[in-house]
């Protein structure tokens, strides 16, 4: 990285609260995450603790007196001590280093010891994430994801921001077979989502609008019938979408996509910020989502499946996005960076037959499948249109399914299986013979596609 250009990966709140970097643990180059990690982890539960103290503390004091209150305080302090001690042990037992083969090794665990080896040639993505409290101290966590079944990620929590950046660069450089001190690659901003567009787009999503209309309906019923039952529903149907809109707004605020030799970088977040780098050729499938009320502005959301990312972060599913909202032609341009040679306009769509109307009266006109030398694409949905694209070389398996109703109409559903993620490549209720023929051919195309695929050898570009 040149001196005049500041790093684009991660940021702090500009408070100047920094902690010194720490050196390696021993001569073999083993490292530890930063020693104040247990404190930062503890700090992040303080707001919840204070809230709990206010809620329950007052009632304990009022109903049981000062003695019980003091007892409760002591218990809480002891619990906090245990949590801190455990955090300290976790920190003590976590070491990471690069082994002789250039792979990232992580040893961790207090009660159960775990030794992990991440084969960096199979790197899928690197994230630098900064929860608000880590940002306060100018710290960050690094998530490294490799291809593999089950839990194949490593989370290093917390490093100083400069160490997280350095480690990220080293991981990317090693995985590309470059020298380990290659520095941060320059970036070229492709798109930035204005906060206003993000807010409007979230409000105009089909689910938001439907739920808000439902709450308006419940409110109307409540007023007209002068009963209070409807209010309970209105609180849920009104509250849920507002919560979703607010949380997605905070999460995707300032969404920026940029291109760099490392791969495609996305940066987002208002309170918690994240920088994700996806090396080229790691995208397994892509989907354009176009809710009904976005169409007038010709906006789309672009989602992708990346092996190992977004499907096993605890229990919550994380939507891997290329952009939360963008004008259609801009989105297509972005996707071109991920799949060179993709030409959506030249695809020849094979539509579902007219008898499909009896199975899917609303969306039947939209359903279609298409393919060219590079990709297979499916189109479906009337209210929310979905267009999914999968390169032949990324096809895992192909399925044709047929339910009783489809069978009566001689229809069949085509699925092209891709790695877990938000995108599913499905063309429902096609003509059964067509579905079967496309499935057969797709298996051949997948076989040939893999033979000629060079997108994963990206260091050679």
């Amino acid at each position, binding site marked *: 990285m040149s001196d005049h250009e500041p790093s684009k990966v991660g940021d702090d709140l500009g408070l100047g609260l920094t902690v010194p970097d720490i050196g390696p643990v021993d001569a073999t180059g083993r490292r530890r995450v930063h020693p104040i990690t247990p404190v930062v982890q503890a700090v992040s539960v303080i707001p919840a603790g204070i809230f709990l103290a206010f809620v329950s503390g007052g009632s304990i004091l009022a109903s049981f007196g000062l003695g019980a209150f003091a007892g409760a305080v002591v218990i809480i302090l002891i619990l906090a001590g245990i949590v801190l001690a455990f955090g300290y042990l976790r920190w003590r037992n976590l070491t990471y280093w690069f082994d002789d083969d250039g792979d990232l090794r992580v040893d961790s665990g207090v009660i159960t010891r775990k030794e992990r080896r991440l084969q960096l040639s199979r790197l899928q993505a690197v994230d630098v994430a900064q929860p608000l409290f880590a940002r306060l101290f100018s710290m960050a966590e690094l998530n490294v994801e490799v*291809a593999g*079944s089950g839990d194949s990620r490593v989370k290093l929590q917390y490093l100083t921001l400069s160490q997280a950046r350095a480690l990220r660069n080293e991981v990317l450089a090693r995985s590309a077979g470059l020298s380990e001190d290659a520095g941060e690659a320059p970036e070229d901003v492709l798109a930035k989502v204005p906060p206003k567009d993000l807010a409007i787009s979230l409000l105009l999503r089909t689910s938001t609008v439907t739920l808000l209309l439902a709450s308006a309906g419940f409110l109307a019923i409540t007023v007209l019938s002068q009963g209070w039952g409807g209010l309970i529903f209105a609180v849920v149907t009104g509250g849920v979408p507002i919560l979703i809109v607010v949380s997605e707004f905070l999460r995707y605020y300032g969404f920026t996509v940029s291109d760099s030799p490392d791969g495609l970088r996305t940066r987002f977040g208002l309170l918690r910020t994240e920088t994700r780098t996806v090396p080229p050729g790691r995208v397994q499938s892509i989907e354009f989502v176009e809710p009904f009320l976005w169409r007038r502005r010709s906006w789309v959301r672009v989602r992708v499946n990346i092996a190992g990312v977004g499907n096993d972060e605890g229990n919550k599913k994380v939507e891997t996005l290329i952009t939360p909202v963008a004008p259609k032609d801009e989105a297509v341009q972005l996707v071109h960076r991920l799949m060179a040679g993709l030409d959506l306009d030249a695809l020849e769509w094979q539509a579902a037959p007219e008898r499909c109307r009896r199975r899917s009266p609303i969306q039947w006109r939209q359903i279609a499948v298409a393919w060219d030398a590079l990709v297979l694409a499916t189109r479906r949905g009337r209210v929310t249109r979905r267009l999914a694209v999968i390169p032949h070389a990324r096809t895992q398996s192909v*399925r044709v399914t047929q339910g009783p109703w489809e069978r009566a109409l001689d229809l069949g559903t085509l699925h092209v299986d891709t790695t877990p993620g938000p995108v599913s490549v499905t063309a429902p209720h096609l003509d059964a013979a067509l579905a079967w023929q496309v499935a057969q051919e797709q*298996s051949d195309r*997948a*076989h040939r596609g893999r033979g000629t695929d060079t997108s994963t050898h990206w260091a050679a570009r």
Partner: protein
Amino acid sequence: MADLTHDAFTYEEGWTAVSPRLITARRISLALSYLLVVVLIVVLLWVPDIPVWAPVTVGAVGVATFVWLWWLIGRRVRSFGYAERGDDLLVGSGIMFRRLVIVPYGRMQLVDVKAGPIDRMLGVTTVQLHTAAATTDATIPGLVPEVAAALRDRLAAKGEERSAGL
């Protein structure tokens, strides 16, 4: 079965059906699960204040579904099968909800061979293929253990030959 032979869901060339022993295995499991229904009826008969039509209804419904499921197992198991082709494996199943999966050998990540206690008693085994996609549902139940082991080894060898990362 004649109506099945001329559509996509039965691939004629090289199609291997699963062992009919699986029918017995599944019918035994069905009978075991219906023991619960029998117990329920006996309990109902013992409770004093329950009108007699209650256990009779439960019994009639139980017998009817039992006979239907018994028959269905035969048809379903006969619908299971697979075909090893040049570059991929075909797995088919289902009567009401039919499904046909094509798994290219190069995409297989691992092959599971497993058998529950009843299956072991009767000598049937299940072979399951996994790819990097969680939605790949390629399960071949009801193979004779030797056939299953041989299939696994062949698949593993073919997978190795054609393996191509992700």
